[in-house]
């Protein structure tokens, strides 16, 4: 059984992405007890699935490494992975929370030596790489995964493959009889940082995502550019593995659309501008990017970044929301629409189309097992009715990493105030 030490002076942080980790660390570093709950087998969330950050074009692993070091050095944070909050009762200052823990089938003895992964035959979808490839059913989710422990997929438990994994493990780390369990814990305040998910691109029917293999999403493009990704960092298009030198980016794919996401997702313009750098780096002057846009919202101090991309002769901008994607005989996706500048119709073929998908909350406000106010998109709104539950990061709004971290720090401060009050009352 997993044991969790928590009292009404504890802060529960739900979600271990960049926001959750930040909130947990900020609170713990002021001396508070924190329980950090993460659904995935690893921390870092969608941030670690990025190849590079804007605007500095640095690698997320760097920032993550700093956070992980802070985390490892801090005895006040207990991390529960493969864990989901299933129930919240009580009130501000005295919450009672139930958490469902899925079995990892690998215990703390694991040294991440990788023998089980080599021995196991069965393969499963590679979720970390947005299912662009397959991985072994005994796996380390990513090279930077924390905890650095393998996971045995439940599909091979009870099969000969599972027994093989157990047999090859020299450290007695594989425990195939692990069971799902539910733990309950107390907390004075809750930081809800369950983050975001990309909008379901197949709902934008006229873009043909799912029908045309060379129409992919912006998050998938991150994985294609990443050396740890399914193509080893080569930008190869899915249909035939050809180098995608002529890439189209379609902005507002789902966002700012009453039929899809009503809000501006804020990060997608910058993400596409950033991704033109990937094309430029991979192919030099042979790499061409085209950005189809309604208007570029390079908010805040990012205007500079936009102007630099604009100055690149290999990047062109077309002011138009693409109305339809078709496919030509060579399997090239063709963008159809009318250019607002001159109102001329175009039908332009590209090697690859990247949909700059917007973000929606991965847990909608109404699906949170407590009374929490949320807007029509499902983002948590600050409201007295939320009591001791504070939204952080992309659970509250469409944010980039920078703003998510700011939001998480603010949420941590609010949570700290609640447990301070509890501490004073209990003293």
């Amino acid at each position, binding site marked *: 059984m997993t044991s969790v030490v928590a009292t009404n002076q504890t802060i529960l942080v739900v979600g271990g992405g960049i926001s959750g980790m930040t909130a947990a660390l900020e609170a713990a570093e002021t001396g508070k007890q924190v329980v950090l709950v993460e659904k995935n087998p690893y921390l870092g969330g969608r941030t670690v699935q990025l190849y590079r950050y804007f605007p500095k074009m640095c690698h997320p692993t760097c920032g993550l490494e700093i956070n992980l070091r802070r985390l490892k050095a801090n005895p006040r944070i207990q991390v529960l992975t493969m864990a989901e909050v299933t129930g919240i009762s009580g009130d501000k200052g005295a919450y009672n929370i139930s958490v469902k823990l899925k079995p990892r089938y690998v215990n703390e003895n694991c040294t991440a030596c990788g023998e089980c992964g080599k021995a196991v035959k069965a393969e499963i979808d590679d979720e970390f790489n947005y299912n662009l490839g397959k991985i072994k059913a005994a796996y380390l989710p990513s090279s930077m995964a924390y905890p650095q422990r393998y996971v045995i997929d439940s599909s091979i438990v009870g099969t000969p493959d599972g027994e093989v994994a157990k047999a090859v493990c020299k450290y007695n780390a594989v425990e195939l009889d692990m069971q799902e369990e539910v733990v309950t814990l107390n907390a004075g305040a809750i930081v809800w940082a369950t983050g975001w998910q990309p909008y379901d691109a197949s709902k934008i029917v*006229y873009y043909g995502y799912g029908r045309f293999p060379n129409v992919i999403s912006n998050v998938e493009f991150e994985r294609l550019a990443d050396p740890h990704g399914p193509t080893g960092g080569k930008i190869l298009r899915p249909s035939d593995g050809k180098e995608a030198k002529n890439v189209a980016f379609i902005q*507002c794919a789902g966002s*700012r*659309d*009453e*039929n*899809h996401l009503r809000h501006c997702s804020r990060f997608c313009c910058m993400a596409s501008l950033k991704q033109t750098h990937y094309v430029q780096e991979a192919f030099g002057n042979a790499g061409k990017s085209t950005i189809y846009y*309604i208007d570029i919202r390079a908010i805040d101090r990012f205007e500079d970044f936009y102007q630099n991309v604009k100055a690149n002769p290999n990047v062109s901008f077309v*002011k*138009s*929301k*693409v*109305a*339809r994607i078709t496919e030509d005989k060579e399997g090239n996706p063709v963008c*159809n*629409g*009318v*250019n*607002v500048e001159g*109102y001329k*119709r175009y039908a332009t073929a590209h090697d690859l189309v990247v949909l700059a998908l917007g973000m929606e909350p991965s847990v909608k406000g109404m699906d949170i097992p407590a009374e929490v106010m949320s807007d029509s998109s499902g983002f948590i709104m600050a409201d007295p009715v939320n009591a001791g539950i504070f939204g952080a990061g992309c659970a509250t709004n469409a944010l980039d990493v920078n703003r998510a971290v700011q939001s998480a720090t603010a949420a941590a401060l609010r949570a700290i105030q609640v447990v301070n009050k509890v501490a004073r009352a209990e003293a």
Partner: protein
Amino acid sequence: MGDMNTQMADRYKNNFLKEIEEQAEMGEWVKMCMQCGLCSGSCPTNFQAGWDHPPQEIFMMIRAGKRDEVLASNSMWMCTSCYNCYVRCPRKVPVTHVMHGIAEYAYRIGRSPKNQPTQHLSKTFWDNCTKYGRVNEVKLTQTLYFKDGIGSGIKKAMEMQSVAMGLVKSGRLNLMEAVGGGHKCKDLKGIHAMLTKAKELEAQRKAAKATPAG
């Protein structure tokens, strides 16, 4: 009543957007357009040579006050009412209805393009079906085919001969209706009363809009 066009132009002076908002059905939606171009890109008629301006350009021209160009444009009349633009518009602008509204307004003040085939069809169809409450197919096609003279009318009729024969055989077209009134609806008086009332209500509504506020 005088010249409607001059009256309206005088009243709204250089504010064509306001004129459309107040006078054209659904005109108040024009300002909601964010010029993304999804309507134009989705429009099935925009391959046609007669398509002067895509909807998003019409919206921009209205805002820019290009009164003469908009009212005389062919575009609104090219709309097939497929509703692609309407269902896809990210701002939920009822583009189809706006286009119809502008077309109707242009016609009402006598500024719509002359001899525009769709306009001619609409007018002919309306007159034909409101007269007896039912469409007289023979008279409708006659009026349409002979629009540009006897020669081209006969040519068109000959081209459509096999379709017409099919319709006759299946009882959908009675050639005898070329003379006389043709088939009528059961309650002709009722339908005329309804149409008169509807016209009256619409006139009231438009008069209310046309009265300058304050």
